[in-house]
């Protein structure tokens, strides 16, 4: 085997490690810095294999496999390195980091690390649990909104993904989803059998049948996870989750993703969950949304409809799952008095002085946002309402964090 392939791989890994070293300055913040350290350790493993285990007399397939692994590692880790770097950008609302971390630790355990960063995609997102970064929760906000404190409730959805994985909820819902999917196919057997003419109806549960529906079984599972995360975010942040969701996503994104329920179903599901959680729903909410375009070919349209039907069957149990989790984790209920008190502070253009939680601040923030007369007495403020309100929300989060640290200090003293 010529050295070229090995040399290229060695050089690529060295370049990646050099980049990490350049970024990871001594004053780099702790959580993203730790993330970079762990990513670097993965490159160290590869480097060791390249330099110590491999030589030109090794099996060419093995050499190619290692070279391929370096490409995969670069593809996998470069976006993460960028994410860690952008977490330090001043566009981010650093005031939210402390309260979000506190919340994440209550949900996921005291050793959880949270990195909030910005992304040049117009969608909040999280990275799925990354085994190389154990106990990390990475939350990305669209760069243009990453300084907007009012959209922090959407972080609740991303925390939902983390708890979904941590609790291995997928394994619990796979069976019911598969049953519901097969039932939905049976109902539309005439159309289905036109696409798979050699398949017998009673084979649907057997290997041959499964091969036909496994791809859109995954769609249904993804939709269940996303629905669960909506419910979790809603339970965590109450109506402010719905407000933030509407702000960022209403009326809809242009194309339907098979990984999510259709937009109107998604909103209906959240309204259903809000009723189960005792959370008020803004009356105009449903009217703000419409469905994205579904430019599917006929078979895909049928598969998607079948997946949607299966998800609809499972949604009530997902809502129950979130209710049970909230009890298990001791998540606080919506604090109506606290929201009103924080809103009164916002009405006089001061940060919330005694808010008990980030959701309380976010809910008061959205109530202020929708109060069109809130600062009639302060015309200068009213002109810059969004900016001033955002400052109040972020300052309130800072006060919350300071008061919680002081309380913890008192208890540990």
């Amino acid at each position, binding site marked *: 085997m010529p050295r070229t392939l090995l040399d290229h791989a060695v050089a690529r890994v060295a370049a990646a490690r050099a980049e990490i070293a350049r970024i990871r300055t001594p004053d780099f913040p702790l959580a993203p810095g730790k993330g970079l*350290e762990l990513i670097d350790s*993965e490159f160290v493993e590869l480097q060791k294999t390249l330099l110590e*285990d491999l030589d030109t007399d090794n099996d060419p397939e*093995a050499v190619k*496999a290692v070279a391929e692994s370096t490409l*995969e590692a670069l593809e996998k880790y470069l976006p993460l390195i960028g994410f860690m770097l952008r977490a330090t950008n001043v566009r981010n609302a650093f005031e939210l980091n402390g309260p979000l971390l506190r919340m994440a630790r209550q949900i996921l355990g005291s050793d959880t690390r949270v990195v909030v960063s910005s992304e040049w995609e117009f969608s909040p997102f999280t990275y799925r649990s990354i085994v190389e970064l154990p106990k990390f929760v990475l939350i990305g906000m669209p760069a243009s909104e990453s300084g907007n404190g009012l959209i922090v409730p959407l972080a609740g959805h991303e925390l939902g993904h983390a708890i979904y994985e941590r609790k291995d909820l997928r394994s619990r819902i796979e069976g019911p989803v*598969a049953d519901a999917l097969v039932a939905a196919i049976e109902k539309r057997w005439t159309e289905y059998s036109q696409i798979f003419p050699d398949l017998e109806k009673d084979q649907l549960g057997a290997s041959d049948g499964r091969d036909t529906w496994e791809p859109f079984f995954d769609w249904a599972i993804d939709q269940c996870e996303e629905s669960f995360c909506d419910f979790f975010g809603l339970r965590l942040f109450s109506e402010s989750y719905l407000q933030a969701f509407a702000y960022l996503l209403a009326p809809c994104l242009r194309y339907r993703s098979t990984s999510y329920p259709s937009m109107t179903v998604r909103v209906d599901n959240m309204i259903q969950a809000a009723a189960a959680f005792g959370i008020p729903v803004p009356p105009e909410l449903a009217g703000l949304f419409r469905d994205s375009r579904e430019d599917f070919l006929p078979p895909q349209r049928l598969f998607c409809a079948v997946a949607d039907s299966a998800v609809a069957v499972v949604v009530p149990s997902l809502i129950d799952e979130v209710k049970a989790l909230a009890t298990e984790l001791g998540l606080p209920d919506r604090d109506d008095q606290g929201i009103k008190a924080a809103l009164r502070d916002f009405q006089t253009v001061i940060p919330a002085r005694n808010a008990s939680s980030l959701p309380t601040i976010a809910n008061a923030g959205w109530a202020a946002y929708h109060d069109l007369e809130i600062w009639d007495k302060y015309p200068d403020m009213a002109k810059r309402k969004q900016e001033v309100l955002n400052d109040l929300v972020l300052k309130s989060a800072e006060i919350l964090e300071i008061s919680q640290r002081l309380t913890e200090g008192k208890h540990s003293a």
Partner: protein
Amino acid sequence: MTEGTATLEQTQTLRPLDTRIPVLATRAAVQLDNLILQKNKSVEAIRRLGASLRETAAATASAVSKKALIDPVAIRILRVVSEHALKTAPTTAADLVQQAKENGEKLLAAADGRVGADDLKLLRAYCLALSRAVASFHQLRQDSLKPLHRLRR
């Protein structure tokens, strides 16, 4: 406060579809190749992959015994691996799990120098196929979740 580095060695157990399996399986294939070439080098990846495969078998066996309607994803991957690496690949979920368990044990035996050259070659092929299959699974999943952008190609 200085924090320790969680290296691969410290995180001993990998789950069946761990994103680190492809690299570990590749490294194990290289180390098996070194055993075939009778080079005296590290066998750490072989040992770790062996333990991980045994765990995969244990984790998926219970799901298989429940006769779930859908095969666990691990089974789907094991099927792909088997078809690529072996001439006579098992077809049932239970046999695939058994094969993963046996290969896990063989890898551990290989790390202890108790496996002949022919079996080492088979294990090397199995590891290479495993690496590719798990990497493809994660890649496909990643691609399907990546937001599409109308200006992006």
